[in-house]
């Protein structure tokens, strides 16, 4: 609870920041530039996928600029890295620093990112204080947008954390449904990687699995900096469940995939979108990765015929195939560009507040269909796609588009 005094201080600071911002904006409007902040973990275990996400967003922005910008505004990018060498992957402390940098840069009117929910949890309260909306193309932890935690993640009330993917409130449970209905799994062992995303998705998976009558034989937590997971995997082998579910990102994921192929060669193994991406294919490689199931918190946009021209342009520009979260990043950029355009068209000044409100009311046609958000910033479309890693020798072994075979949509819980 805020004391009256701190409330007054806060209000007056906000007013001051607002006044400064208005001043800066009138200067910026003269040369008609707005900035979009992009925060992704370019350092560490998720760097490859962060690049693919960044490229998706930049493709949309560059294309808009090539057509003369949006409503007369040239779009600039403030690129920030929330991965650190010490963490070896995304680092929430760095993410918080980056959020402050974005808020401090008066020209930044909206942001794209972060990739990881652990960073999202650190950034969201700061962005809320700065009235800066962000659109994440991949972070799926439901707490950040859950109204129950609004006091923690959006202290100023309004939704500022929008997503072009759905959340683990669906990704975990729907995969549990898939385990029960399609893979006929009767017992499972659940692992997570101690990160915000990993723990969250493993929790929601586990809860739904139990509800569906799958016996959860155990749950353990891996230290992502550790290399040896044979202890855990041997323990799982001795319990002999039908399946393993791993909630987490690539840093631990690569090693789980490798070592599980030795110790649990025949077990059904799967995970969430942390197991979907180039990093898993490169780090774990074949044959270890063969047969793993993974999901994404979005429709399988890459197989949508409408996406083909974008995929072509992406491949031509960056020399590699996009993954689905490159496209959700492309969509995130489209959402922001559309918001800027509508604000400008309405004759209002392109301010953070106005852009946020425009994002909130978005009806944007994107590659995954029309995007609209609920009051918390969550996507109204809640489709979870299931993939399986099946080697296709015709393509490079780290080609996400071709090495992940699309199996269908995971069943929604009724």
């Amino acid at each position, binding site marked *: 609870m805020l004391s009256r005094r701190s409330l007054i201080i806060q209000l007056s600071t906000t007013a001051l920041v607002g006044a400064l911002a208005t001043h800066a904006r009138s200067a910026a409007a003269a040369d008609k530039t707005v900035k979009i902040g992009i925060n992704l973990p370019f*350092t560490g275990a998720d*760097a490859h996928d962060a690049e693919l996400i960044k490229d998706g967003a930049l493709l949309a922005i560059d294309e808009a600029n090539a057509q003369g910008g949006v409503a007369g505004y040239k779009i600039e990018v403030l690129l920030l890295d929330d991965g650190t060498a010490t963490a070896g992957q995304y680092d929430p402390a760095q993410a918080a620093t980056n959020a402050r940098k974005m808020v401090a840069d008066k020209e930044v009117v909206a942001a794209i990112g972060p990739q990881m929910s652990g960073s999202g949890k650190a950034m969201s309260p700061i962005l809320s204080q700065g009235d800066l909306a962000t659109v994440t193309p991949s972070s799926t932890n439901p707490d950040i947008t859950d109204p129950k935690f609004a006091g923690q993640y959006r202290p100023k009330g309004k939704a500022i954390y929008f997503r072009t993917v759905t959340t683990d409130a669906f990704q975990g449970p729907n995969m549990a449904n898939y385990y029960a209905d399609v893979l006929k799994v009767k017992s499972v062992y659940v692992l997570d990687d101690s990160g915000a995303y990993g723990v969250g998705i493993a929790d929601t998976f586990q809860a739904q699995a139990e509800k569906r009558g799958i016996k959860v034989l155990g749950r353990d937590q891996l230290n992502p900096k550790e290399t040896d*997971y044979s*202890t855990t995997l041997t323990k799982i082998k*001795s319990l002999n469940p039908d399946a393993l579910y791993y909630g987490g990102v690539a840093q631990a994921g690569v*090693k789980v995939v490798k070592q599980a192929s030795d110790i649990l060669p025949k077990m059904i193994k799967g995970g969430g979108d942390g197991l979907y991406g180039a990093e898993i294919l490169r780090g774990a*490689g074949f044959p270890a990765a063969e047969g793993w199931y993974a999901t994404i918190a979005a429709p399988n946009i890459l197989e949508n015929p409408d996406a083909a021209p974008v995929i072509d342009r992406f491949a031509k520009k960056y020399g590699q195939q996009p993954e689905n979260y490159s496209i959700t990043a492309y969509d995130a950029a489209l959402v922001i560009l559309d918001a800027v355009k509508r604000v400008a068209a309405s004759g209002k000044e392109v301010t953070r507040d106005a852009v946020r409100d425009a994002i909130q009311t978005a009806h944007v046609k994107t590659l995954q269909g029309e995007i609209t958000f609920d009051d918390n910033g969550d996507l109204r479309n809640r489709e979870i796609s299931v993939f399986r890693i099946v080697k296709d020798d015709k393509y490079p072994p780290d080609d996400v588009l071709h090495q992940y075979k699309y199996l269908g949509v995971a069943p929604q819980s009724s």
Partner: protein
Amino acid sequence: MSDYGVLLQQVVNGLSLGAMYALLALGFTLVYGILELINFAHFNVFMVSSFVGMWALELLGISGQGHVLTGPALAGALVFAFAVTMLAGGVLGVAIERLSLRPLRGVPGTAAMITTIGVSYILFNVILLTVGAGSENYPNPLPVVRWQFGEVTLELKTLLIWGVATALMMTLHLFVNRTRLGKAMRATAQDAEAARMMGVDVDRVIVAAFFLGSALAGAAALIFGLYYNYTSFIIGYTAGLRAFTAAVLGGIGSVPGAMVGGVLIGLIETLGGQLIAVRWTDVIIFSILILVLVFVPTGLFGRAVPTKS
């Protein structure tokens, strides 16, 4: 698997981990025994060596998991990779001593130790910035061969770890106890000043300690890569910290202490993970370390110099 079978399998896993920790712990102990310096650069000498081993294998045309060798070709590839990796590790260790530690020789206090932390960070960031941050799919020329003994699975790579680690530790033991340079090392460890007066070239002894310790880290690094088919710029920290703990547990400065400490830490890690939960591993390891230090402050093998074997 029965409870008994799974415990036995965890002992097998623990011995493999322990062998790696032991090789790495020897590097801490050799240097500490002679200089009373904790060499934190050792963490990342291990990490850098694992990349050298990877490049050595790739130089032979072995990459990823698709190039399995057998017979003499396999033996040749392994000998080459071990030779290159150990030599590179050793040379790196000596270079660190020569460039960053020798100028500080005789400076009292913690300057030298802090320097090793700095060197460690330099190595870490050099690899991060030049090689990149991804996980590497470590080349693996070993065929997958498994033997089943009741409920326990033994793999070829497990035997390789045990074999190489045992051979290297025996060699080190003989070297320290049977050669002139080994004798000089023991003398320096007991009393550097007296050894110098007796005509021992102390600088040469120090170089030898760094070379041997770092070469063993090189061997451990290659074993690590072959065993897990993985390396990354971050591997030094956890493995290094566990190995350092092993050296302290065994009694830092003591060669047999490092070996026993390494194996103990490996077993504590796997059996603790099995019986309690893996997320408690560090709590268990460091609690046992503190208990040992409270009751046997010098570690299991005494406050020793490399001689008390």
